C-alpha cells in the first residue's frame, strides 16, 4: 500500500510525528481489558429476549421453560422488574440528556415500540444457559398497526424546524425560480438505505452493585453522560455511579447514546444481587442499537452556460423513531460548498415505529454529500465541463448562505494537489472511454466536508519533580489514538519527552471529559490541556522567580520556553533551569493545574460559557474540515461487478497531531464510505419492520479484498480559530466517498445509479 504520512515534523516536536499508539501493545498482546472482560468472582451472564412485533402490547409471557434451564437465575420481565425512573426529557441546558437513545422505560412497560425491543432479560450462571433461557421465553402480543415502510411514509414527513443544534432549512433568494430559468439544470432524486453499526466489539456492559453504588464497565463514547443517565434511572446520586471505559472496540457513533443493553445489565445486576455481564450478540446490536437513517433526497442545480450556479436546491426526507432519534444534517454541506446565487435547503423528518436512528460517522453529511456531489457531477456532464473545473468555478470566497467568513478553507489546494498526484489529466472525459481488458475503468471525484465543533473538557495536569507528567481527563478511546495525541501535545507544551507523559482516561473518577463525537474530542481536550500546561509553566516559573538563585528570576512567561525538561530564557537560550531543580528547591514533589469547573454553580457556569462560545463561534465563522476524494473504479463488462481500484484523499484538517493515527482515521472513513457506496444496506422488512440481515454474513461491510491501496495526504495547515490549529478528523473522510464512486461508475459505464448501494443489478 502506498501511503503518504509525510510532512516531516519540525525538529524534536512530538506533535506531527507518526508515533505508535500508546494502547497498541496492550491490544495486540491481548492484555487490554474490554468491557466484557472484567472478572468478578460471582459474575452472572445476561441475554436479551427481543420483541417480534413492531408495535403492540405484551399480553403474556411464559418463562417456565426458561426458568427450568439449569443455571438460569432469573427471567426479568415487566411483570417483575425493579422500577426504573423514566428517561429525562432532552434539554439544551443539560447536554447529558442527549444521551437517552429512546424514551422507552425498558421492562417497566408492556408496550412494544419497535421490532427488537428487549421484552425480557435472562440472567444465568453461564452465557450458554442465559442464551438458552432467552430462546425459550414465550411472549404473546396484541399487535397494533405500525408505520414501518419508509418509502410509504415519505408523504408523512414534516419539515424540520431550525434549532440551536442544527438548521432544518435555509434559504437565499428564490432557488425554484432560478432553477426554472437556468439554461442548464439537473433535478434529481436519490435514495440511501438504512445502515447498521458493526464495530468489532459488540456493545458490552459489566455492572456491579454495592449497596446503592453502581460500577459499570462499558464500551462507551460518553461515560459522563451515561453515568448521569444511569443515576437518574436508578434514583441514586450521580456520585454513586462510576463508569469505566478504558478500551472501546470501535464506536463510530453507535456507542454515543445509552441503549437498552447498558441499562438492562445494571437492572439485571440490581434484580439478582450479582455482578452481571452482557455482551450483545451481533443480532442484538442490530435489534437494540440504532443506525443511520435511510434517506430520500432531491438535488436540483441550475447554472448558466459558464457553469456558474444560479440555483442550488437540496431537500431530504429521513426517519427517526417515535420513541427517539432525530434529524440528521443531510443538507448541511450544501449550504457551504457552492457559491450559488439562490439556495434552498430543507430537511424533512418522519417518525416511525422502528428503532430510533442514531449517530453514524458523519450523520447526515455522509449521505448528503453522496447526493450533492453526484448531482454536481451530473451537472458537469450536462455542461461538458470537467467536474473539478466546475467545482473551482463555484468555489466561494465566503459562506454562500450568509457571507460569513470561513475560518479556514483550502479546497482549491486540495483539488490541485489531488489532481496532480492522482493523474486526473489522464482521464478521458467520455463515459466508457477507458478500458483494461474486460474491465471498464472510470475515475471520479467529490468534495468531503464536515463541520468542526468543540465541547467543554475538564483536565488536570501534574508535573512532577522528576520531569514526568500525568494528564487526567475522562475521555473515551475508541481506537482513534486520543491518549497518544494528548500525550504528544503535553510533551511539546511542557518541553518533556513524549515518553514522560502518561494520559489517564476512560473513567468517571477522572475530571469530566467531552463525549467522543462530532469529531470534537481531540480539539476539545487540547483546548483545556493547553490552558493547563500554561498554568503549570506559570506556577513553575513563579516558584523559580521567588528564588534568588534561579537564572529565571524576574522572567515572565512570555520570555521563556519549555524545553529539555525545564524552562529556558528565550533571550539567553543557555540560561534556565530544569523542572527538577526548580521543584526540588521549592520542596515541591509536583505542581498541578486543573482546568474546568466540575460541580454546582461551576458546572452550570461552564455549560453557559460553552454555549456562549459555541454560539459566538457560529456567528463569526464557518469552521469545517474538508477535502478532495479521488477514486478509480473498474466495472466488469459482463456482470456489472464494481471494484474500487485506486483511492486518493487530500484533506484539509488543520494541524495533524499524529501522522500515523490521523492517516488511519482518514483511511478508515474511506473504507466505511466504500461500504456505503457499494454494499451496505440494512434490510428492514416493509411488511413488519423486522431487520432481516442482522449479521456480518448478510450485511456486507467491505472485506479486505474490496479495499484498494488508499493514498492519504493532508495539507497540514493550522486552522487559526482552533486550539493548536487542529480540526477534527474522525468523520470528514467518509463524506464524498459515495459521490466519487457513483461518478466514477458513470464515467466507466455511462450509467447513473442514484440509489445506494451501487450493486451490480443496477448496472446490468
Amino acid at each position, binding site marked *: 500500500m502506498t501511503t503518504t504520512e509525510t510532512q516531516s515534523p519540525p525538529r524534536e516536536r512530538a506533535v506531527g510525528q507518526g508515533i505508535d499508539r500508546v494502547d497498541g501493545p496492550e491490544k495486540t498482546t491481548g492484555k487490554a481489558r474490554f468491557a466484557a472482560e472484567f472478572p468478578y468472582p460471582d459474575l452472572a451472564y445476561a441475554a436479551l429476549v427481543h420483541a417480534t412485533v413492531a408495535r403492540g402490547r405484551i399480553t403474556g409471557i411464559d418463562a417456565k421453560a426458561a426458568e427450568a434451564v439449569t443455571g438460569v437465575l432469573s427471567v426479568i420481565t415487566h411483570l417483575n422488574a425493579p422500577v426504573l425512573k423514566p428517561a429525562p426529557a432532552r434539554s439544551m441546558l443539560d447536554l447529558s440528556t442527549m444521551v437517552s437513545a429512546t424514551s422507552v422505560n425498558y421492562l417497566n412497560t408492556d408496550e412494544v415500540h419497535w421490532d427488537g425491543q428487549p421484552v425480557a432479560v435472562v440472567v444465568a450462571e453461564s452465557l450458554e444457559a442465559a442464551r*438458552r433461557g432467552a430462546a425459550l421465553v414465550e411472549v404473546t402480543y396484541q399487535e397494533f398497526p405500525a408505520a414501518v415502510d419508509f418509502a410509504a411514509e415519505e408523504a408523512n414527513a414534516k419539515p424540520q424546524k431550525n434549532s440551536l443544534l442544527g438548521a432544518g432549512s435555509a434559504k437565499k433568494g428564490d432557488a425554484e425560480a432560478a432553477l426554472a430559468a437556468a439554461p442548464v439544470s439537473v433535478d434529481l432524486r436519490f435514495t440511501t438505505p438504512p445502515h447498521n453499526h458493526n464495530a468489532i466489539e459488540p456493545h458490552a456492559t459489566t455492572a456491579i452493585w454495592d449497596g446503592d453504588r453502581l460500577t459499570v464497565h462499558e464500551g462507551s463514547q460518553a461515560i459522563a453522560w451515561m453515568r448521569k443517565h444511569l443515576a437518574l434511572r436508578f434514583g441514586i446520586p450521580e456520585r454513586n455511579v462510576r463508569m469505566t471505559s478504558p478500551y472501546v472496540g470501535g464506536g463510530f457513533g453507535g456507542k454515543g447514546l445509552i441503549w437498552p443493553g447498558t441499562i438492562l445489565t445494571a437492572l439485571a445486576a440490581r434484580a439478582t444481587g450479582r455482578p452481571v455481564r452482557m455482551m450483545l450478540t451481533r443480532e442484538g446490536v442490530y435489534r437494540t442499537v440504532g443506525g443511520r437513517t435511510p434517506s430520500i433526497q432531491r438535488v436540483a442545480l441550475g447554472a448558466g452556460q459558464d457553469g456558474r450556479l444560479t440555483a442550488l436546491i437540496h431537500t431530504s426526507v429521513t426517519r427517526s423513531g417515535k420513541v427517539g432519534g432525530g434529524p440528521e444534517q443531510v443538507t448541511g454541506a450544501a449550504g457551504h460548498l457552492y457559491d450559488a446565487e439562490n439556495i434552498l435547503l430543507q430537511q424533512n423528518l418522519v417518525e416511525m415505529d422502528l428503532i430510533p436512528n442514531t449517530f453514524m460517522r458523519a450523520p447526515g453529511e455522509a449521505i448528503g454529500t453522496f447526493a450533492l456531489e453526484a448531482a454536481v457531477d451530473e451537472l458537469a456532464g450536462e455542461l461538458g465541463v470537467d467536474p473539478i473545473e466546475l467545482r473551482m468555478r463555484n468555489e466561494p470566497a465566503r459562506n454562500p448562505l450568509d457571507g460569513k467568513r470561513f475560518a479556514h478553507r483550502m479546497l482549491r489546494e486540495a483539488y490541485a494537489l489531488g489532481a496532480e498526484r492522482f493523474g486526473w489529466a489522464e482521464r478521458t472525459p467520455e463515459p466508457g472511454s477507458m478500458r483494461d*481488458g*474486460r474491465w471498464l475503468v472510470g475515475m471520479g471525484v467529490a468534495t468531503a466536508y464536515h463541520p468542526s465543533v468543540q465541547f467543554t473538557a475538564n483536565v488536570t495536569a501534574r508535573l512532577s519533580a522528576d520531569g514526568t507528567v500525568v494528564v487526567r481527563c475522562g475521555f473515551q478511546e475508541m481506537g482513534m489514538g486520543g491518549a497518544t495525541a494528548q500525550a504528544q501535545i503535553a510533551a511539546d507544551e511542557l518541553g518533556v519527552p513524549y515518553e514522560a507523559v502518561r494520559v489517564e482516561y476512560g473513567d468517571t473518577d477522572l475530571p469530566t471529559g467531552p463525549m467522543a463525537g462530532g469529531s470534537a474530542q481531540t480539539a476539545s481536550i487540547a483546548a483545556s490541556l493547553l490552558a493547563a500546561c500554561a498554568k503549570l509553566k506559570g506556577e513553575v516559573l513563579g516558584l523559580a522567580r521567588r528564588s534568588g538563585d534561579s537564572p529565571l528570576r524576574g522572567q515572565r512567561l512570555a520570555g521563556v520556553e519549555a524545553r529539555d525538561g525545564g524552562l529556558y530564557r528565550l533571550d539567553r537560550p543557555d540560561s534556565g533551569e530544569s523542572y527538577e531543580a526548580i521543584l526540588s528547591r521549592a520542596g515541591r514533589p509536583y505542581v498541578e493545574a486543573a482546568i474546568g469547573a466540575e460541580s454546582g454553580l461551576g458546572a452550570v457556569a461552564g455549560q453557559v460559557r460553552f454555549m456562549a462560545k459555541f454560539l459566538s463561534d457560529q456567528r463569526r465563522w464557518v469552521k469545517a474540515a474538508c477535502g478532495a476524494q479521488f477514486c478509480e473504479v473498474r466495472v466488469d463488462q459482463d*456482470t456489472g461487478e464494481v471494484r474500487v481500484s485506486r483511492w486518493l484523499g487530500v484533506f484539509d484538517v488543520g494541524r495533524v497531531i499524529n501522522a500515523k493515527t490521523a492517516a488511519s482515521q482518514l483511511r478508515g472513513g474511506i473504507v466505511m464510505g466504500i461500504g456505503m457506496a457499494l454494499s451496505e444496506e440494512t434490510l428492514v422488512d416493509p411488511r413488519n419492520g*423486522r431487520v*432481516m440481515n442482522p449479521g456480518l454474513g448478510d450485511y*456486507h461491510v467491505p472485506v479486505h479484498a*474490496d479495499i484498494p491501496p488508499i493514498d492519504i495526504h493532508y495539507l497540514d495547515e493550522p486552522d487559526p480559530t482552533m486550539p493548536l490549529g487542529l480540526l477534527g478528523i474522525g468523520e470528514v473522510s467518509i463524506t464524498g466517498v459515495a459521490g466519487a464512486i457513483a461518478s466514477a461508475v458513470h464515467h466507466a459505464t455511462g450509467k447513473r445509479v442514484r440509489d445506494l448501494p451501487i450493486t451490480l*443489478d443496477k448496472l446490468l
Partner: protein
Amino acid sequence: MKPFAYVSAPDVATAVRVIAAEPNAKFIGGGTNLVDLMREDIEQPDTVVDITRLPLTEIEELPGGGVRVGALVRNSHLAAHRLIRTRYPVLSQAILAGASAQLRNMATVGGNLLQRTRCPYFYDGAAACNKRVPGSGCDAIGGFNRNHAVLGVSDDCIATHPSDMCVALAALDATVEVQSVRGLRRVPLADFYRLPGGTPHLETALEPDELITAVEVPELTAPSSYRKVRDRASYAFALVSVAAALEVTDGVVTDVRLALGGVAAKPWRARQAEAVLLGAPATDESFRRAAEAELEPAVGRPDNTFKIELAQRTIVATLRRLSDRSLGVGRMA
C-alpha cells in the same frame, strides 16, 4: 442452543450404528454450518455424533483417471491438492471462491454437500418458512428475495443451495458414496438433491441414518473454470456462479459441462444449454443461445429477476474465456 449428547465415533461401522439407534442425531464434521444452525435453534439434535476421527481423509487417484475424495477431506486441503488443481481447476477454484480461509480449513467435503440455505427467513425463527416448519408459509416470496432462486422454484420455497464446491461437482458428474447399517450405495450428484416442490424441508436423497463417506469424480480432459459473481470481493454467497468445462475442436464444441450456482435449490446442471452447445460453433452467439435455452423456464421476482440476465451473461463470459483459452487467444485480464 439446546443441550445435546456428544458421541465420538471411532470408525464408520460405529458411526452408522449410533445414528441408526438415535432417532434425533446428527453427524458433525467441521461443524461450520451445523453449529450455526444449532445456535439459532434451527437444528436441535439430541445427539451429535462426531465423525472427525473416521479414516475418510484420503484423496486417491482411481483407475481410469478419476479421483476419489474422502468425505472428511477439508475444503482447503482439497482445493490445494495437486490432482485437483491440475485436473479439475473448476473444483479448486470453486472451493476457494467460497467462505473464508478459516471456514475452509474446518469445512469437510461431506458437510459442504449438506449445507443448508442461507435464506434469511429460514434463519429467523420469527418468520414463516416451509423449509424450517413445513406448512408455515414462505415469507421470502413476498419479502427480500434478491439472492433467491429463479430455477426449479415452487410456491412453497424459493431458497437457494449456497455451496460453490457442489456446483463444480455437479458439472463434473460426481457420485456420492453413502453408507448405513443397510450397506453402501452410490448416488449420482444429479440425483442427490431434490427440488422444493411441496416439500422444501426434504433436501437430499440421503436417508436420516446414512453417512456420506466419499465423493468420486470421473476423469475430465476439457479445460475448466469457475466464475462466481457476488456483491463483494470475498465472503459472500454467489448471486450467480458458473462451473464450466469446454473442449473446442476446429472451432466446434466437442465436450461441454455446465452447472449454475445461486439460482436454484440445488447445484443446477445446465443440460439444456449443453444440448445446444454440443456440436455448435464456439462463438458468443452459440453461448448466448445456450444460456437463453437454460434460463428460458426461469421465474423471477421483483428483487431477483436480474439473476436471469446475469446468469446468461456469466455463462457467456465463462464459456468465452474457456473457448479463447482452448483457441490460444491471448492473455485475458
